[in-house]
């Protein structure tokens, strides 16, 4: 198994390099001048040239290789829109925030999704099933900024028990995490419900029942593990997406996370910040996928069949 894991890990830098190249091409192809701020006075060409030199962005070819070199040293460059901050500082300040909210959101999504999904599978066609599906549809349909704004108003205005726009304590995590958890929760709920239904119909569950196991033991010891395999695969990309922040959630709750930089970076053509955020996200995504595969291999012994010895 370690051979497999090793080959997966070796693929990571190659994948990231390809992503870097593709992103770079898109970033420089998009119309718009990164040095020309929106709404401000026109920039004389000589000035722009000097600025480009200063950032190592004289021309695209130089920029590509120079920036790649900087990346190798862990230097993500400078932000063109937040001129006094380096991309490293920006990411160091915002990634932990997004990660905290993201992890909490995934945790909530997992607990609620698996719990309700299992209940719904057990009582197919009943009230619980109906309510669970209803919740899933609601969670996917209602946009995050509506839910977020509603939570803000509900707990800061109608019941003024939580402050607006603060960040620092674990309580500040709650509302953004709940808002962010809705969509993955819906997917996990539906996945679990489907998977659990299938598993509960399978032969080995019948065997387990025939052994005289109580229904809850059947679910907990036999059904759950099997039913959660597809959920595990979903968790990899879902966690990466959650941990790198949601633009909408962070905006509504005024959380200093990474999500805002993805969008603002593009809107302002902040080229190095775009590359930095994309690479951070890609690294997390690829790593989490490898991790999920690894954990899958631990849980499901069948996975290693056919792997080179």
């Amino acid at each position, binding site marked *: 198994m370690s051979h497999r894991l090793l080959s997966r890990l070796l693929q990571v830098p190659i994948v990231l390099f390809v992503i870097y190249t593709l992103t770079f091409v898109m970033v420089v192809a998009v119309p718009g001048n990164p040095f020309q701020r929106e709404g401000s006075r026109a920039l004389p060409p000589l000035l722009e040239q000097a600025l480009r030199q200063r950032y190592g962005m004289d021309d695209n070819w130089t920029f590509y290789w120079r920036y790649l070199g900087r990346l190798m040293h862990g230097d993500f460059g400078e932000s063109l829109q937040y001129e006094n901050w380096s991309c490293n500082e*920006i990411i160091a300040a915002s990634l*932990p925030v997004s990660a905290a909210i993201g992890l909490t959101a995934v945790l909530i999504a997992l607990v609620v999704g698996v719990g309700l999904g299992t209940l719904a599978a057990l009582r197919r066609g009943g009230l619980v099933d109906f309510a669970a599906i209803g919740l899933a549809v609601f969670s996917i349909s209602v946009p995050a900024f509506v839910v977020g704004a509603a939570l803000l108003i509900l707990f800061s*205005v109608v019941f003024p028990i939580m402050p607006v*726009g603060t960040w620092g304590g674990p309580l500040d995590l709650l509302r953004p995490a709940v808002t962010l958890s809705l969509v993955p929760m819906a997917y996990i709920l539906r996945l679990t419900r489907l998977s659990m239904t299938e598993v509960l119909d399978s032969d080995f569950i019948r065997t387990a029942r025939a052994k005289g196991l109580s229904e809850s033991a059947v679910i907990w010891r036999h059904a759950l593990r099997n039913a959660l395999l597809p959920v595990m695969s979903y968790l990899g990309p879902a966690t990466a997406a959650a941990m790198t922040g949601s633009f909408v959630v962070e905006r509504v709750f005024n959380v200093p996370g990474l999500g*805002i930089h993805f969008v603002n970076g593009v809107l302002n053509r902040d080229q190095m910040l775009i590359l930095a955020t994309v690479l951070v996200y890609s690294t997390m995504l690829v790593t989490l996928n490898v991790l999920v595969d690894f954990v899958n291999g631990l849980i499901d012994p069948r996975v290693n069949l056919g792997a080179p010895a």
Partner: protein
Amino acid sequence: MPARSSLSFGSARLLIPLVGLVGLILGLTRLTPREPAAELRVVDAVSIATLDPAQMSWLQDIRVASQLYEGLYVPSARSTGVEPGCALELPGSDDSSLRFQIRTDARWSNGDPVTTDDFIFAWRRAVEPGTARDYSFFLYLIRGVREYVDWRNTEIERIGRLPPNERGAAAAAHRLEADRRFSETGIVREDGRTLRIELVRKVAYFRSLLAGPVFLPLHRGSVERFARWSDTGLLFFDPHWCKPGNTQYNGAYSLADWTFKRGLLLTKNPAYRDAASVAVGSVEWLDVASVDTAWLMYATGRAGWLLSLEAGFAPELVQQSDSPLPGALNHSGRKRDDVHAFPAFGTYFYNFNCLPWLPDGGRNPFADARVRLAFSMAVDRVALVSQVTRRDEPPATTIIPPGMITGYPHVEGAGLDLSRARSLLAEAGYPGGRGFPEVTLLFNNEANHGLIAQSVAAMWSQSLGVPVRLLGKEAQSYREDKKQHRFMVARASWYGDYDDPTTFLDVFRSDNGNNDSAYADPEYDRMLARADGLPDASARLQALAQCERYLFNGSMPAVPLFHYVNIYAFDPKRLTGVSLSPRLLPLLRNVRVSTSQPGAAGSD
């Protein structure tokens, strides 16, 4: 041998990673520092881009800089004018050669006196090719500066073409020469406290320019350490000099803390020359991205002063109706007195493309001034302001907001006149709008630009019978299109930089880089140059008013729609001394916070 099943989910084993995860999450939240206590919390709904005065052009950055630094002149609290700052103008000073003496009590936060060298150093940064930005061209009014910059650029290019091993020596020699040349420009050090500025010509409004960020001084001793010279002779500065603790301040406040995307902490500067009159000891300046959350922060009492109310329901608040939300938002229980809408020194208008040909090769109907005039006269500005934007904005028929520049006469532009508009259009060859090509109306997809565009488009198609297509684009693309004149009509705005009509009128000069209309009228250029050069101040203003009249009653390069309104939100019983000046600069040194009620102006 004990049972070994694959990763067993026995309860204990599930609990451990779960607890670990929760611990990780809590740890991550602790990584952000706690918020500091402050007497006053101020919220601006936009993020700080930079705190380098030589490079700033956004209003929110200028707002902060005006608390930290004080120039030769400072913006007035009452008007768009200026008042003396840390220096006094000496007798013998006139519109082409100004002499200043820096006050003896003008000091940096570490006690160092403010000297001429601090100004010269800062102003050189403002024009140097490595650090210059949007407003550096103001310094070109000073004798010799433009030549210096051109020379610097040529030399840098020349050195850049040399083989790498020769560059070092060439750059070093060039640096010495640069220092010498700069000392020969019109920025003259008479002594440690006396500064003389020689201009290329008489500039009536130069004093007003001196209050701008690009003319602020910097503590040379601190900032110098961050200078970096490239091997081609380009001068940069490590941008970390702006971070707290790296430099000194001569304004009413010092920068005590700056957390990225959270906010700044400003503390009273005890070395400030007028520190005794500064009432608020500490201010937290919050950075909030969402306009609705910004409002909520003010409304729930977390912030005491909201610097721009842009939420979608702003018009309702402005109408001073009861709060739309239940709960304790409306502190006094009656009509609100905490929403303050006031006129700003800026105008919202639509540029016409004045080039003879359109980018697709077709003839440009707007090249004909009669067409432009017709379109302008078909816009019902009053309806626009009362039904679409609804913030009590003054409708505009001219570009300069009235009553803000002292001594500037009232100018009327062409207003709503449908019959005249139709006859003009017919005269130009499009009776009833027949044969008129589809008009593309370009705007950026933000705020209410789309709504305004729809209304104006409807007015044109209904009153003139011309087809209009709305082209809403993302901000940067919109900017690109405007720069390349890829539009027929485009949304625009302009805020005055200084207290003189030329700040607006210069935009329409044929050689101005911001002339998005590509309006090239030699007659106008001549009028403007002649008016600007008049020696007598009031005759000059009258002549400039003539220029404005000429533009907005005849040639109409743009259609002014309305003048901007800014909205502050603060409780006037708790916060006093707030100036509603059109420059939109909150001068914290004049503000007082009433501590008579608990959790006064913003609570923890």
